[in-house]
């Protein structure tokens, strides 16, 4: 158990909304919070725009909100943006799904055998702590410039995260529950599906939310390094032309996509792990 840190134990992955207990005045209070947040965002945008308009900073370096919106509209109407979004999202999703499924399956399989776990443990632990991104040029060399190289790059980043965490979760199982299930006549198959998998699920989800970020990260790095499509390419190509508005347009879209992904993940997690005591009330 002492090496639990090898896998990310389930934890709150994001700063939770503060809980307001008093029933009275909650609506008013929430409204004020939302107004304050909106003012903060709008204020930041206004300051940015003003700094450029007044001539405090050259738009060449930091662009401006208006220029970014114009650039985004331009990219959208030319169809380029949608194509880049489609490339990046599909590659990241393919890498995410394939490496997650394989990671969970191999993690569960390995947890069933003390022998194979012992044999593979040093390799897996080593591979998991390697900065595997260094292999990206090798992967591009092997798979050429294209979808395959990007997916494989993301795969090497994500697969081990899932494998290590699934294995950690499966080993972390409560022995009382396992014993009782065995005594009640559960078959090996029952044990795997009805005991080991659900018990490892919080660990798997902790890994999945990291994996989502990493699969996008891997795809973006590969797109910046060698590609001619995708949001990473859009950002890198804009930067190459010193088109900062284009860079920011790409970044905003990418941030929105990453945020949507993580929201979807948290919704699924909340649904599948609704049996977990909520962290907010603890």
């Amino acid at each position, binding site marked *: 158990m002492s090496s639990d840190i090898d896998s990310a134990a389930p934890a709150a992955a994001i700063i939770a909304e503060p809980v307001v207990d008093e029933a009275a005045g909650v609506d008013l209070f929430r409204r004020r919070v939302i107004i304050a947040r909106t003012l903060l965002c709008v204020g930041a945008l206004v300051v940015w725009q003003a700094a450029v308009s007044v001539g405090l900073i050259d738009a060449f370096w930091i662009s401006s909100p208006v220029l970014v919106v114009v650039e985004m509209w331009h990219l959208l109407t030319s169809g380029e943006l949608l194509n880049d979004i489609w490339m990046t999202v599909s590659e990241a999703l393919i890498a995410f799904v394939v490496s997650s499924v394989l990671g969970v399956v191999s993690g569960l399989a390995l947890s069933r055998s003390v022998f194979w776990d012992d044999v593979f443990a040093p390799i897996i632990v080593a591979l998991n702590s390697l900065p595997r991104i260094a292999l990206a040029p090798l992967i591009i060399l092997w798979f050429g410039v294209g979808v395959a190289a990007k997916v494989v790059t993301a795969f090497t980043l994500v697969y081990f995260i899932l494998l290590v965490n699934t294995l950690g979760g499966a080993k972390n199982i*409560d022995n*009382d*529950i396992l*014993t*009782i*299930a*065995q*005594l*009640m*006549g*559960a*078959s090996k198959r*029952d044990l795997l599906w*009805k*005991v080991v998998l*659900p*018990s490892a*699920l919080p660990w798997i989800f902790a890994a999945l939310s990291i994996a989502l970020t990493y699969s996008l990260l891997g795809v973006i790095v590969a797109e910046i390094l060698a590609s001619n499509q995708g949001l990473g390419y859009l950002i890198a190509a804009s930067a190459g032309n010193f088109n900062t508005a284009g860079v920011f347009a790409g970044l905003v879209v990418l941030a929105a996509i990453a945020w949507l992904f993580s929201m979807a993940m948290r919704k699924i997690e909340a649904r599948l*792990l609704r*049996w*977990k*005591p909520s962290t907010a009330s603890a």
Partner: protein
Amino acid sequence: MSVSASAPPKIRLNNIGITFRPRDREPVVAVQNISLEVATGAIVTVVGPSGCGKSTILNAVSGLLTPSAGYAEVDGRRVAGIRHDVGYMFARDGMMPWRTALRNVEFGLEVRGVANRREIARDWLRRVGLEKFEGHYRHELSQGMRQRVAVARTFAIDPDVLLMDEPFGALDAQTRGILQEELLAIWGMTRKTVLFVTHDVHEAVLLADRVVVMSARPGRIKTTLNIDLPRPRVAEVTRSQRFADHCQEIWELVREEALAASGVRT
């Protein structure tokens, strides 16, 4: 012993010895020369100082571990490998946190492929007074309710033999008292054979037809006492002088062993 020749015992322990051999360390003799018979439908409780190997006896009956010497029998057949026809309860509830109370009770029936498992599970939840909590998860239940779920889960698979390892040990005194009553009530209806391990002398006397007192490690059977108190064990029985005498007698025996185990000579 009190077993007649006509009715063979439900559980028989035949000169069992269990020795643990941890790697790189001296072997530990947990129990030695344990011979014990439990008649069908009887409750036998086992008391003794902590660490005397009480739980390992249950493990030998359930097949969770194989004795180093001797053997255990259920229904005249030797135990080899994990038995699926015994009900087992621990001090920890062992509830699956990802299943509701109802689905926890269903688990055993589910892996056995029982078709009307939902009705059976509902019925048992009702009997332990949790019908209003069937949709609740583990963290939404009190410790006493969790242990009630464990009782329902154990009885739902209708086992012939119940092995209970300090099942109420983690509960507060009031809840423990209530659950003891409930267990006796359910046992009165079902007449299962029960082997019950505890360190609580009052509990041992309250439940038992027979109390087995174990010695300090290595655990041997020190004495066996028949508890000839009437059933049901209502309040008048537990307040009686005979009940107090039984408790006193067993308490003295256990105390001697506990002192011996802690190195104090009497």
